């Protein structure tokens, strides 16, 4: 089996949002939505900090689909449009999506985005990878772990473009992969671990 995943080095992330733009360009993500975004955790203003001067901390947290082993979104989908593929990725079959948004309510990470309107693009044409399917109005979408790229054996675009090399991509089922070694050896943070969704994506210092 294969369990593709991304590990994110929190110490290296500088909150530049390059991953968001790289993903948007690669995957033809329309205006008004993103598949990955970086938040300043527990802050109510962008790039804010937590605490009182001079004792301030700031944690940048890149957020995208966690490709859970026990995906809450996949269980609730009435048509099986959301599925777990044999590479361990959580994917969406857009032709099957009826736009009920059950998965959106079920996802604890708020990483799904819905086409509330006809997708609006600026520039006014489809951009990105030619193999990425175009999504229509009324369907759900989210990070596919760059399905089209990873199918070809390439790394996801956010991993390629991260200027600080904060993202490490690999197979968790291969014990010798860099990502498996990090998961074994480093202190690892799993987002909302207590919810039991078992994300494959994880964070480390």
């Amino acid at each position, binding site marked *: 089996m294969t369990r593709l995943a991304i590990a994110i080095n929190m110490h290296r992330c500088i909150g530049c949002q390059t991953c968001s733009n790289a993903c948007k360009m690669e995957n033809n993500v329309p205006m008004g939505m993103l598949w990955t975004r970086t938040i300043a955790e527990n802050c109510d203003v962008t790039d804010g900090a937590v605490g009182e001067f001079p004792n301030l901390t700031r944690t940048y947290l890149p957020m995208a689909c966690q490709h859970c082993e026990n995906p809450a979104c996949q269980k609730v989908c009435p048509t099986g449009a959301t599925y777990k593929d044999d590479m361990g990725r959580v994917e969406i079959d857009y032709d099957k999506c*009826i736009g009920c948004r059950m998965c959106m309510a079920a996802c604890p990470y708020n990483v799904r985005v819905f086409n509330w309107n006809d997708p609006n693009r600026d520039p006014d044409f489809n951009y990105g990878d030619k193999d990425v399917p175009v999504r229509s109005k009324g369907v759900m979408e989210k990070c596919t772990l760059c399905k089209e790229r990873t199918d070809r054996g390439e790394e996801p675009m956010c991993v390629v473009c991260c200027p600080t090399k904060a993202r490490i991509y690999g197979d968790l089922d291969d014990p010798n992969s860099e990502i498996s070694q990090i998961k074994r050896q480093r202190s690892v943070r799993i987002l909302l671990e207590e919810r039991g969704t078992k994300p494959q994506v994880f964070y480390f210092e």
Partner: protein
Amino acid sequence: MTVSSKTKCTMGLLAALALAGVGCWIFQLVRGLGVTGMSNSNSWGLYITMFMLFVGLSAGGLIVASSASVFHIERYKRVAVPAVITSIVCICVAGMFILIDLGGIQRIWRIVTGPNFVSPLLWDVCVITIYLVINILDLVWMCGKKADEHKVEVLSRIALPVAILVHSVTAWIFGLQIAKAWYSAIMAPIFVASACDSGLALLLVALIALNAAGVFKVEKSLIKSLSGLLAVFIAVDAFFVGCEVLTMAYPGASESVALSHMVSGATAPFFWFEIVCGLLVPFLILVFSKNREKTGLVVVASALVILGVAAKRVWLLFTSFITPNVYGAPGIPAGTATAIGNPSPDVWMTLGTYAPTAPEVMIVVGVISLGVLAFMVLSNKLLRGVDGAAAR
């Protein structure tokens, strides 16, 4: 059958509102769900609120009607036909709200060709379909040409558990979501309890209205007896709500965020309206035997119960959307049309906010009007001139 000009006027107005609703729905189909107030951070809105409310209103009617048959409560059997009519109308209204809420209704056949049996939404589709069929069979066997009391009695034994199940499954759409504050085992009992009180309240209002319109005669003693039952249902509902709130509050842990929105935040007006006007006041009215004899007070109490349960749907649904589990700025990309048109401030939502838009409200008004219209037509056709006892 003869229909007064006043009734005709009301029906005409309702039909016009329903048509306006259809117009707005077509507008929504063309433009997408972006014409509503929903967004990526608050992804369910007024349609789902109304869906929950009307499933409850429907289940209540059938629970009373079939309990009468199952437990041989002779005097309640009299109201079985109007109860089944309200039940049919409300379940159709609820179903319409689910269909209207779908972003890709043209792909709905995918539910049939590739069902995921683990999804509570699939259970709901199945149970609501069965429920509607039972309701229609009930009505046919109660007052059709082939009226057959024995068949009704047998069917009632299936109808009662299905009526309870239909509301439990609706609760599980929410109650099984680990992601939200909805995640609670009491969700199904709470939904069944509010189905019983709001459904019975609606039945009372309908019976009093039918009596006043001279369509269907109901004795005062029956209204009084049903009102007493309503008081009991209100108390059970209040007990469950109390259990849930205490369980949320006591540990002071993760659910306290949702609780603070509920008791003192954005959804607090709805929460307190339900507690005071939806549970406390109607209970205090109906608990006294003398008050139950006054039709006016019964109508006021019933209307308050229905409004209170509607308010409950609001706080139950929206409280969970306010603070995301992983909180931080800039937040969640809203994805709405306004966000696309005005990217800099509107594209991000740190907290979930929601307000229904005009087309959304018009669609809801249209669907409810259609429901009331259907109720008037059905009750005029099936009840007028027929005494309740004769119908059975």
